[in-house]
């Protein structure tokens, strides 16, 4: 069983937290903090497993994590999961995010936590691995997005407004214009579907 999935950045700010056991909000924050302290002080080239069972439940729990530039992806699992398997799963997760967001970055995770949650829900459900095939996951996500769009109808108007507002707030647009290839850059922005 996977007990929890945490994503936080190099400063310990949570970007996604998913607990498959109920904890109070305070405990959740404490777990995130402690996990961050455990994980962040490790060198880059040490192994990706940590026996830090103190945080969540019993001692057969393990922390399995990967560090991608500014983000830590941490899975807390018990002994029934294969360590290397979970490492692969994290990789699949990140690649899926990358596919769904087209060059994912920390900002995507901030602005689209719900989407990240939805992607995660296609991979892990209730602490058990649901799907490991990236193509299958992406297909389902796309289908759901399509469904959302088709249902949107009138409700699309606010969404358009959102993107408009958002574009206004993003300061890099002028820069891109300065570069002069707006036709390429604008579609590359984090998707506002």
């Amino acid at each position, binding site marked *: 069983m996977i007990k929890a999935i945490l994503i936080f950045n190099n400063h310990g700010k949570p970007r996604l937290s998913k607990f498959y056991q109920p904890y109070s909000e305070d405990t959740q924050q404490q777990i995130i903090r402690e996990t961050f302290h455990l994980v962040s002080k490790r060198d880059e080239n040490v192994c990706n497993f940590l026996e830090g069972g103190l945080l969540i439940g019993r001692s057969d729990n393990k922390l399995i994590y990967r560090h991608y530039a500014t983000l830590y992806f941490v899975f807390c699992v018990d002994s029934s999961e294969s360590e290397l398997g979970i490492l692969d799963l994290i990789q699949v997760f990140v*690649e899926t995010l990358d596919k769904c967001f087209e060059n994912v970055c920390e900002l995507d995770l901030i602005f689209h936590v719900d989407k990240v949650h939805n992607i995660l829900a296609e991979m892990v459900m209730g602490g058990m691995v649901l799907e490991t095939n990236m193509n299958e996951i992406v297909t389902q996500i796309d289908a759901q997005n399509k469904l959302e769009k088709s249902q949107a109808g009138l409700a699309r108007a606010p969404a358009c407004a959102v993107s408009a507002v958002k574009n206004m707030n993003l300061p890099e647009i002028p820069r891109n214009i300065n*570069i002069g290839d707006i036709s390429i850059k604008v579609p590359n922005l984090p998707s506002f579907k």
Partner: protein
Amino acid sequence: MHVQVGAWGLARNRAGAWGLASSAPVPRKAGLLLGGREDSGILSPTPVVGVEVGPGVGASVPCCLNVTAATLLLGAEGIEPVHNKKIFQDSVPGCRKSSTLCRCIDEIKQELKQDNIAVKANAVCKLTYLQMLGYDISWAAFNIIEVMSASKFTFKRIGYLAASQSFHEGTDVIMLTTNQIRKDLSSPSQYDTGVALTGLSCFVTPDLARDLANDIMTLMSHTKPYIRKKAVLIMYKVFLKYPESLRPAFPRLKEKLEDPDPGVQSAAVNVICELARRNPKNYLSLAPLFFKLMTSSTNNWVLIKIIKLFGALTPLEPRLGKKLIEPLTNLIHSTSAMSLLYECVNTVIAVLISLSSGMPNHSASIQLCVQKLRILIEDSDQNLKYLGLLAMSKILKTHPKSVQSHKDLILQCLDDKDESIRLRALDLLYGMVSKKNLMEIVKKLMTHVDKAEGTTYRDELLTKIIDICSQSNYQYITNFEWYISILVELTRLEGTRHGHLIAAQMLDVAIRVKAIRKFAVSQMSALLDSAHLLASSTQRNGICEVLYAAAWICGEFSEHLQEPHHTLEAMLRPKVTTLPGHIQAVYVQNVVKLYANILQQKEQAREAEGAQAATQLMVDRLPQFVQSADLEVQERASCILQLVKHIQKLQAKDVPVAEEVSALFAGELNPVAPKAQKKVPVPEGLDLDAWINEPLSDSESEDERPRAVFHEEEQRRPKHRPSEADEEELARRREARKQEQANNPFYIKSSPSPQKRYQDTPGVEHIPVVQIDLSVPLKVPGLPMSDQYVKLEEERRHRQKLEKDKRRKKRKEKEKKGKRRHSSLPTESDEDIAPAQQVDIVTEEMPENALPSDEDDKDPNDPYRALDIDLDKPLADSEKLPVQKHRNAETSKSPEKDVPVVEKKSKKPKKKEKKHKEKERDKEKREKEKKAEDLDFWLSTTPPPAPVPAPAPSTEELSVNAITTPKDECEDAKTEAQDEEGNAEGQDQDKKSPKHKKKKHKKEKEERTKGKKKSKKQPLGGEEAAGEPVQNGAPEEEPLPPESSYSLLAENSYVKMTCDIRGSLQEDSQVTVAIVLENRSNSILKGMELSVLDSLNARMARPQGSSVHDGVPVPFQLPPGVSNEAQYVFTIQSIVMAQKLKGTLSFIAKNDEGATHEKLDFRLHFSCSSYLTTTPCYSDAFAKLLESGDLSMSSVKVDGIRMSFQNLLAKICFHHHFSVVERVDSCASMYSRSIQGHHICLLVKKSLRGPVAGGRKDRLLDSLPAQELFGFWSLSPAASGRLGALR
């Protein structure tokens, strides 16, 4: 507030592995992740997004979903979550610190009040974000439910997400969601269902689980695999919350293991693995199925899960391990996936552990594992290294030798920069020490202790050193002086938390190793002398704990002190008062011991002044303890101070006091085993759970009761008073105790080294006088370095070796002269190293009559315990998932009719119920045995290279089979009835794809038929199918007699044959004869052949091409004491004829003296009831059958049956394959079917004089006279005698 997002990315390096882009060149500017592309963005010069968000922005953008949420959080991040509750409770002006957040919360509250669902969803989405940041959003639970029930998928998804993040069992509004979730589960859109399932998996409560279990179970056979896999996975959560659902749902879950969609299959494997991990024994019967999956599946995820599951199952069934070794070894050789390889190795290790007792010749497998692990450990990938070490430590437990050869590698890992790896390596060291290398290894560890920078790692090292040395009762320590000095050295560690550990070791060694006390005391006094060094930073580090031990040892064994006066002064220094209270208390107490000793010495030496000086010192110094703030210290000190003052007075009068003072501390303190208290047996007649005083009853009406209890107690008392044990009794008890101690794990077993001796009964006179080897100098000035012991030890060993060689030479010369004994090759093993001192380790004391049992303490609150459910037991009618019922239940006839029967049962007096339960248990046991037999069969057959015996068809399939081959219209009625039952029994067929199913089954059937015609050995599947209805059909209410259905066929001194004849449902006119052969001799039985003389009516199915007169070989051999089952199929022409077939079993019995050819004749008896198969029947279908008028009828009356009606029915059910349809008081309708599809209805009535049995049967059976039908009763051994009179 300015937020700058750093770069993070991942780039694929050329080798194709994922590298970490940690060296991002633009740390302060944001880069985008550029996964999977060659033009890795990390390196691309184009910069990128820099976002600045001010605190005001979040508040100013009210309705755009994502931006607001995100900006909100950016603004909110600065706020400490500590204030969260306050923030929500207070109104806006109340919050000063976090005005931004307050504004946002206020805004959200406003949005939630609006009617527009989009706005609401937006607000809930923001709340979800806040929840992640640690803010309690439970106040919005109702709004979340509102959003969940939106019709649009977008909003629904937001609602469910918020619910899954914030709902838990305590959320009170969760009950409101039940209907909404049910609606979503049955939604036509698969994604609505999917979202509901996902959400539910996070917040399912026992109530939700109970109410929705049935809906989810229906979804398990949804047409879309996307839903199926989610439904399967969520079942695990449902089981956890509502364990009653496990049994009804299990058949379907099992079926999903063979789902065509790999995702569903993997989900089912996942769930069953998770279930089996907690209660593996209930899932042993699935082993063949998993075995098949393992050999066929190519999905590594599934394989890993299955292999892990096997790892959990093998300890329960060693034969399974034997079967597994080969395919696993193949996988290890073939797979390229490291994760799979690693899990295979792990499971092979588990197998080897489970086999280690029985089969020692798996060295090849061990070698393979160790070799593969070595490759892992040597790998540059730290992860593999870590896992390799982890797995290695498992091998170590059972096969330490094979790991020890890799000592170099493991010691190398101790130098690794990764702490996790070092810790793993440390674990391994634990098992690698021997007498020979202990000192060397510990020395190495000590250097690591010095080098280690982090306290955690150093502490870990410290505990490991102590663990390694103290393991198995100091087994590997040859020189305790060395050990004491190691401990003393460890006290110099700064900032360790494990002072108490060291202290405990010091105490333990000093108390239990008598020979070392003198040395220990000298070391401890030195330690006390330098206490100021240790105590420099006392309060902060735990090392001062060792002073506790030092003080106690110096006090208790003060007779060994060289300069007691000096130590006394050291213990009374003012500095001591800075120590923690409990240590001071020990100081005070032991100062007196020391003082008593000094007094004695001085008085013996007639030095009155010396004694008085000591007293004076005490009187002077003790007041500092009297002033202590610690109560314990103060009390002891003031008490002792008075004592010493009194002594002083006496001393002034020249009265000798030493005797009396030391009498205070006379007697030996013996170690007590840690669990001794728990092991004190409860005296006979003492009921700890009984009330001593009657509890105050609520109702006043029960005045009478106390008197009755009192009365009873008086009666009991004289009986249970422990008899005064006389000497003889005591001696006997002592003997018994010794016996027990021999079996007691807490008693130290005799050591492998003959020099060590342990005492069972600690007593001073039993302890031999210890001789100390003179080669070790006893006086070591100051604190010795442990290193010198290593050197000394080497020298000593060298000397010993020389001596031994000399002796050996002498002996050899002698032998050469005498040539009497053949000499064994001189090998230096551990045992050759004699300990430096003869050591007597005192055992820990145990109470008399200690209970040898070591009950492991299971956590009663473990949620998984509830899932410890026997899954092989057939389903009872009462075990249904609750179905939502509508008022007009006109159609569901069958269940309704069943209900009164059940109710009637429950109304019966309790006694009967109890009895009933017992019987039930018996039955369960029996069925378990039966199941185990099937598994046995699978396990005992030699593993075929690829194909595995066909998996047992699930119970569901069976019932489908029974239903889909209707013979007449009443069968249809039955089918209907079954359908109406819905999912209630977990046996129903898949409503949505029945045709597909039927086809499948038919196909299977055909295949099976073909297979049977071709091969004489019936595939297991068919056998199980034949066997299972017997278990299935017998209604749960009816208890079965505990005897076995196997009857004796023939026996001689070599072999015993028992057989069971079962009708086969699938095959018309066929019965399966299962013959169990048990080898009773001590020779191996080989080449067994069974030849049966066919009759016109019954023929044995033989392999193609063999003639009627050929024998049929038995597919196995029997080693001594082993039994196994062989199955043969017979084709029957007419089922109304009882048959007796003559047969011969011929075999070769081979033992040490040679082989003999033996024969055993037997007679196989087919009674009429062997052609019947138990088939369940509902009362309405039964009634229709009777109404149809197709049945002919006959009846008999039987006298002289003395067993209870209940038992009679059970016997009829069990031996003659009937099932009870309905039972009213002393009258029962029973039903059975012949293998050719005839219906047989039986009415059993109990008249005043005895039961009357009436039979109605199919027209086809008309020719069968009543005697024939009932004649079989006399032939069945269990029922004979009593029932024989039926005729």
